């Protein structure tokens, strides 16, 4: 572990002050901070040290790592990866087996209390055998590694909320990292996968300021997850005007109208896709004509069909309604019968009364 600051490292690489300022500009934009913060970022980076990062991959598909590494080096994200010390990532590292595990242990020992842990994937609790690394269960590795961490970043919806493995009926008993880690700060960076610049933006924030960013109720950094897709969607004016695509190839779809009726989960999904976009700012799901799936939200696999409008309930209401009709008819008929019985009874009890009955002279 080098004790150099990031600025010193850049200088050693022959990068000018101008280059450093450019780096800070891009980094500020990456962290979704206003440009007025550039001098602050520059100042913070002048004394920032390279943090050691341990990346734990549990029940995951490597999509999150793919997402991150697809941002080609040397992008600004790449630069960040040069400037953190990624000491353990069993998919990316060259070492394997005992050597790999040794690297993790060494990093923990050298930076105890100061390193960052990135958790990728959910943790199975039903049977540890569902997912092990070097014979160590995910739960044990998590507990052991997090014990000396400064903070934990849960990358991807699986690590943040359980994700796909957690979907009903959840055979592995998968749970999120934050449900197991109680004594360390956990930053959730959900998404399936998360936007690469968001992953690196969160790392950059830690690298720059040495602190964790402001989080929302679901543990997500507000700078990236503070606004819903719907609020930032360029198709929002169509929602407001009541212009909706009704199939994927009708006139409305071709004109780029709102995708609400096609099942877009944008109104309930908090993520930065609408502004940061994907694939080097080329496009994003809604721009390419498909509704948002809500991948950065808890339970997104179980929250109804991707192609059903948000207002449509799911569950067995149709079947229940059938039973309810049958029950209603039976109970209604019973009530009707009871009423008729009461009517008949009162009719039977009815006695004819004549004027004479009211005669005052009548003897008691």
């Amino acid at each position, binding site marked *: 572990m080098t004790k150099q600051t990031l600025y010193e490292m850049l200088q050693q690489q022959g990068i000018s002050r101008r280059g450093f300022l450019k780096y800070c500009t891009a980094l500020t934009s990456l962290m979704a901070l206003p440009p007025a913060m550039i001098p602050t970022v520059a100042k913070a980076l002048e004394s920032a040290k390279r943090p050691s990062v341990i990346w734990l991959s549990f029940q995951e598909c490597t999509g999150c790592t793919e997402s991150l590494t697809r941002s080609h080096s040397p992008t600004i994200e790449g630069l960040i990866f040069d400037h953190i010390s990624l000491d353990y990532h069993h998919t990316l590292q060259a070492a394997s087996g005992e050597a790999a595990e040794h690297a993790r242990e060494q990093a923990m020992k050298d930076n105890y209390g100061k390193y960052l842990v990135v958790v990728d994937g959910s943790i199975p609790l039903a049977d540890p055998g569902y997912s092990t690394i070097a014979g160590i269960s995910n739960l044990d590795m998590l507990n052991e590694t997090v014990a000396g961490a400064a903070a934990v970043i849960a990358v991807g919806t699986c690590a943040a909320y359980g994700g796909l493995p957690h979907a009903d009926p959840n055979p592995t008993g998968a749970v999120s990292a934050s449900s197991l880690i109680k004594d360390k700060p956990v930053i959730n960076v959900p998404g399936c996968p998360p936007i690469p610049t968001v992953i690196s933006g969160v790392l950059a924030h830690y690298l720059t300021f040495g602190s964790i960013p402001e989080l*929302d*109720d*679901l543990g997500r950094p507000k700078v990236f997850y503070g606004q*819903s897709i*719907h*609020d930032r969607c360029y198709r929002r004016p169509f*929602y*407001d*005007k*009541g212009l*909706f695509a009704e199939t994927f190839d009708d006139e409305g779809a071709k004109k780029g109208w709102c995708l*609400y*009726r096609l099942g877009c989960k944008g*109104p*309930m999904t*908090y993520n930065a896709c609408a502004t940061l976009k994907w694939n080097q700012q080329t496009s994003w799901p809604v721009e390419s004509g498909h509704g948002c799936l809500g991948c950065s*939200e*808890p*339970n997104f696999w*179980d*929250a*109804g069909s991707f192609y*059903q*409008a*948000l*207002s*449509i*309930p*799911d*569950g*067995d*209401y*149709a079947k*229940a*309604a059938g*039973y*309810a*009709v049958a*029950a*209603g*008819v039976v*109970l*209604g*008929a019973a*009530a*009707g*019968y009871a*009423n*008729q019985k009461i*009517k008949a009874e009162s009719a039977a009890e009815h006695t004819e009364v004549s004027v004479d009955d009211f005669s005052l002279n009548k003897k008691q």
Partner: protein
Amino acid sequence: MEFFSNANDFLMWTKGSAFTIAVSIFIVGVLVRLLEILLLGRKTDYSEPRGTEWKGGLKNIISRSVVDKGTFKRAPFVIVVGYIWHIAFLVVLLFFVPHIELIKAILGLQWPGLATPLVDAFAVVAIVSMLAMLWHRMTHPVMKFLTTYEDYLVWLVTFLPLITGYIAFHRMIAPYPLALGLHILSVEILLIVFPFSKLMHAFTLFIARWYTGAMMGRKGIES
């Protein structure tokens, strides 16, 4: 939130089992209440019919919607605001696109929706007219005398879906799943209370008008 680990869980519950339960209670309740009335039947009328029942019944269902001059003079506020409220409410219920999607999914029926700002304006009208009616109910001496706790309850369960819907649409509560969940939950409360309260008038109104009209039709009364 004790029972839900987050707002999304809450929303899923309202859209899932809570909705199923509410709809079931609503259907059972409405059927029982209706059959209870219909199966009671009416006394056989042995007199010679001077007209047809169905003609009078249908006519009455429609003609009674026209405001009676005398009643209007006595209670103009109730009639005007009552009409405004019902129209505004029905527009919001039936022409807001997310509602149309819901109806389409459940009943398979579909019709065009209105532009969202227009629906929003109707929602405001509905909310304001409800507040006005509450104010009228609480200040008018006769109304106040006639009002029972049930009336306030009915007012509340009708008002809640409107106000929560307005809040959800304008995203005034964050996160949105909480706002939408509260709106759906309020509708479910309305569905459950509906069959067992004065809200049943939405159905019984037509039965009552039919019976009266049919009786008059049979007697050959032209009104």
